[in-house]
């Protein structure tokens, strides 16, 4: 929580003035019954019309001042709460940008998006309400009691008794039901989930004749929700009648006591009316306060969630400057006994991987789904840090590079080809904001994307929709490749990023890359043996282990897993191989 409070510090004045003016308004509200009492006890009793008119004007004046106070309070509250939320949102956005992939994976991007949108909005609402109302209700309750004391001490004692009792009743009912409401929400989510499942899985459910068991599952969840709802309902059903009963019983006692006091000459009739009015105000405010506290409670929970994101710090640290020492080895990338386990995973995704790659080489990485191919290239780009062993870039531990330096050296084309809302030019500029159009076209040529762009209206100015929805998968892949090329990285990683291309385009792309990237070390992750066949070095992964390194010919001879992969895609070659063996 304290993490968030600092964002309120530049709104100190507003945060003070908002409740202050709200209190002023309350003061005027509280004086009203006194004025009315004077109208009755002085004006009516003496039939003094001038006096009554004066008091009437006082009432009008107080209404006007009350209005002005309240407007001022609302103004400052809006300023403080919105300003605060704006700052928090910006800080949160910037903070998320510093998190490493491990934290992003653990939290999940959906959660982060909810935190920065819905949760921050809830906090804003809570703060706004809190500044305006949190002090108002208790002040009216206590103020009414003080006023009662000013009128008649003995009658006021009834207030002293009634308020705590009411307070306890209202709050205990709320306290019991709030956690139950959370539980209700959980049950409702379950019912929602089941409904969704029944729709998305309708073909499977029908294919396996699971209709009845689906309905049974749903019915039991549905019944549980109803039962819980009714249980919570039974508790909150008490609130209204119980408070109504209590406050009216207190008023009955009050009037009785007031009767005695008036009879003794300690109190006047108009003052009885005033006491009666104060009692009525209390209950309205207590109920308001209770519902305000529910809202605040919700925003506090949201604030906690937001604060918990702030509490996360990146598990990766970068030096300010890249350590300056030997940069002259001809080894571009080296892995030394590298193992890696994802946070919370049961088993390692990479175990004891060692290899080294010379500068300018093209490296193919192949293996089954889940064999650790993407993990391996993620370690090269330092998206994650190895759990054991070390990764070297140009002979230097990858952890010794500054964040910017590392980022400049490595161009990544991720598996999921993502483009952003904006023109094609904007998207390509991600690689290098200063690139000229000629450079962009050059990159597009290599990525086999020239015809894609030329076919679009406005060419480089063509507007890409969010997530690149207005492009096909293959078009997106080619543009993401171009985006990485614009960067002119010394290390290029293509993580299965040509999967949506047909074989001819794939081949042309590889050829163009080969010519374009002389001196660039290239990593090609692929499911297709054809795509990596020409590589200088092929890494074969199986279940997180490196089971083969070498050229295509070496591996075809010695590596059984590579053989299996290769022949599954080139069955004819297997026969050929056999024939040759037979000869």
């Amino acid at each position, binding site marked *: 929580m304290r993490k968030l409070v600092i964002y309120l510090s530049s709104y100190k004045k507003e945060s003070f003035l908002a409740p202050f003016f709200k209190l002023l*308004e309350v003061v005027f509200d509280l004086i009203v019954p006194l004025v*009315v009492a004077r*109208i*009755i006890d002085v004006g*009516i009793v003496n039939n003094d019309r001038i006096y009554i*008119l004066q008091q009437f004007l006082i*009432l009008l004046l107080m*209404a006007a001042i*009350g209005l002005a106070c309240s407007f001022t309070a609302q103004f400052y509250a*809006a300023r403080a709460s919105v*300003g605060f939320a704006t700052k928090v949102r*910006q800080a949160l*956005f910037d903070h998320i*940008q510093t998190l490493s992939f491990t934290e*992003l994976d653990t939290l999940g991007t959906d959660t982060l998006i909810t935190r920065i949108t819905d949760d921050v909005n809830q906090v804003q609402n809570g703060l706004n309400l809190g500044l305006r109302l949190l002090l108002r209700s208790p002040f009216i309750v206590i103020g009414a009691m003080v006023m009662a004391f000013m009128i008649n001490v003995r009658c006021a004692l009834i207030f002293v008794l009634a308020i705590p009792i009411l307070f306890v009743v209202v709050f205990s009912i709320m306290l019991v039901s709030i956690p139950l409401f959370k539980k209700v929400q959980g049950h409702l989510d379950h*019912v*929602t989930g089941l*409904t*969704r*499942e*029944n*729709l998305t*899985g309708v073909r499977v*459910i029908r294919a396996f004749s699971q*209709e009845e068991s*689906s*309905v049974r599952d749903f019915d039991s969840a*549905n*019944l549980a929700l*109803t039962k819980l709802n009714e249980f919570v*309902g039974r508790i*909150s059903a008490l609130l*209204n*009648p119980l408070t109504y*009963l209590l406050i*009216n*019983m207190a008023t*009955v006692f009050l*009037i009785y006591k007031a009767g*005695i006091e008036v*009879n003794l*000459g300690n109190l006047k009739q108009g003052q009885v*009316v005033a006491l009666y*009015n104060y009692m009525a105000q209390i209950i309205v405010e207590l109920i308001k306060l209770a519902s305000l506290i529910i809202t605040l409670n919700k925003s506090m929970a949201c604030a906690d969630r937001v604060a918990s994101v702030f509490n996360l710090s990146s598990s990766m640290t970068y030096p300010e400057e890249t350590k300056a020492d030997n940069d002259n080895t001809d080894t571009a990338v080296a892995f030394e006994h590298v193992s890696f386990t994802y946070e919370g995973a*049961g088993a390692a995704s990479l175990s004891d991987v060692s290899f080294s790659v010379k500068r300018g080489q093209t490296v193919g990485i192949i293996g*089954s*789904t*889940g064999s650790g191919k993407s993990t391996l290239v993620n370690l090269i*780009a330092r*998206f994650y840090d190895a759990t054991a062993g070390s990764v070297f870039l140009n002979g230097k531990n990858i952890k010794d590079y500054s964040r910017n330096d590392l980022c400049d050296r490595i161009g990544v084309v991720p598996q999921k080809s*993502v483009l*952003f809302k904006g023109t094609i030019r904007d998207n390509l500029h991600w690689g290098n904001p200063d690139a000229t159009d000629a450079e962009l076209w050059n990159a597009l040529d290599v990525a086999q994307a020239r015809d894609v762009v030329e076919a679009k209206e406005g060419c480089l100015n063509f507007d890409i929709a*969010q997530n690149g929805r207005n492009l096909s998968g293959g078009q997106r892949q080619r543009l993401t490749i171009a985006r990485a090329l614009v*960067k002119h990285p010394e290390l290029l990683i293509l993580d299965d990023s040509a999967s949506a291309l047909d074989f*001819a385009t794939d081949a042309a792309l590889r050829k163009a890359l080969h010519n374009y990237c002389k001196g660039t070390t290239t990593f090609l992750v692929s*499911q297709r043996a*054809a795509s990596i066949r020409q590589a200088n070095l092929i890494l074969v992964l199986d279940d997180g282990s490196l089971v083969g390194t070498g050229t295509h010919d070496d591996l075809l001879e010695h590596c059984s897993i590579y053989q299996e992969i290769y022949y*599954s895609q*080139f*069955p004819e070659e297997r026969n050929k191989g056999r024939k040759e063996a037979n000869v």
Partner: protein
Amino acid sequence: MNPNKNSSNQKSLTTLWKVLRFIGRYRFLLILSILFACITVVMQLYVPILFGDAIDQIIAEHQVHFHKMIYFLGRITTLVILSSIITWFMNMINNQLTYRTVQDIRSKAIRQIQRLPLSYLDGHSTGDIVSRVIADTDILSDGLLLGFTQLFSGIVTIIVTLLFMLSKNIWITLLVIVLTPFSFFVAKFISSRSYEMFHKQSTTRGKQTALIEEMIGNQKIVHAFGYETTASTRFDEINQALKEYSQKAVFYSSLTNPSTRFVNNIIYAGVALLGAFLVPYGMLTVGGLSVMLSYANQYMKPFNDISSVITELQNALACASHIFELLEAEPESADSANELTDIKGEVTIDNVSFSYDPSKKLIRDFNLNVTPGMRIAIVGPTGCGKTTLINLLMRFYDVQSGSISIDEQNIQEISRHSLRHSFGMVLQDTWIKSGTVRENICIGKPDATDEEILEAAKRSHSLGFIRRLTDGLDTMLHEDSLSQGQRQLLCITRVMLCLPSMLILDEATSSIDTRTEVQIQEAFDRLMQGRTSFIVAHRLSTIRSADLILVMKDGKVIEQGTHDALMHAGGFYKDLYNSQFAKVTE
């Protein structure tokens, strides 16, 4: 009047009538709820009058009529206790009424979902139907059922308040009636001003959310390209604009309450003034004045309540009509009781035509004879009707003309369960239900032993990753807890466990790497020995070993035969093969 409005009113009335019919046995509760609401309203409005009467007994020193005062206080006590009890009963009744109705609607809806034809479910988005079953149902019960109660009690409050006020003094009553509308005008004026700001706020917020989703959602790319600073600047621009609009929107909208309160305070002062002038003439007592003051304070409330209830009611009726649209949709045609037994696996497709959209013919005059144990591969360009054929075989959709028979029995005359049970089906679009791995695998065979499950998992090559999960077979799965490939393996395991008589594979191994695919293929080959199977695939290995390849184009089989025969014939298949598959061997 506007004819459109009339017809929409007519529709609302019909919906309302349907709701009343639907709640059936709860109708009594609804009437009771309304009745109780009216009773408590009258009681609670009468209490201030009694308090006024009691205060009137307290005149001045030595002029307090204790006897009468205690009499009134006693009546108040009785009334308050009674009204509290009735309110409590009413709350309980309302709970039952709403929660049970919701439960009933949802349980009807889920049954309806199981019976609806796929044409309906495919034609509506999942989110749409889910929101009908969940959100709309909640709004219906809250808005409509409680709305009734609030509406009636609001009306009763206004009438009774007016009557009570009139019984005290006509002039003050008139003053209140004349001044009250001002409060409405003020509220209306402010809301029309703040609307514009709210509109701007929500557009800007939408833009910001879009940017957040893009940047945070693709944080890894942002990170890889060092785009953080630019992202932050772009965010800041939108954030500042949002701040402007939000501050204004929040401020303007928060003026409504103080302003109406101001109008109320003026009315209050007016009542005090007029009352004070009238008391000395005996036209009003002091107690009466205090009653009037408390009524003047409350008089606005029922109006506000009613106006919000009416919006809610309209909203709830709209939701109700969504729900009824779902509940009343035409279910699948009646099912036959015939069962398929001892399936040999002969499939005859005779002159079948089908289309999703009547204006676009999809499958026309489709004929096919499959002898038991044959393996049929279906290939063709996207949209040629491959998946449609599977929809027809499984009777997810019914043929529009012609017939499909299994072992010489028309599938229209076989119960859907029995038909579907005879096929094992794996689709490209994998579905995992939230539950354990075991539950997911056992869908088709709930009583399978662990040995059987593990054996099936081994054959479908899912055992490796299942073992790596934290709790093995008992690991809870959610919608996205597995990779696409792993999900496909799990779906294949499901079928491997059931040992169905026939098999349908629709791009079933599209997300699995080729090496594993070959291994699974071998397992399928063993499984399908002597069993008829239909395979839609785009990969070479699966197609080439088929007994019969159907080449589909525009809903028709344009070529059929074995791979070698088709290649030899040199038609569309050869072109397709060369363009799609052959380059692998380059």
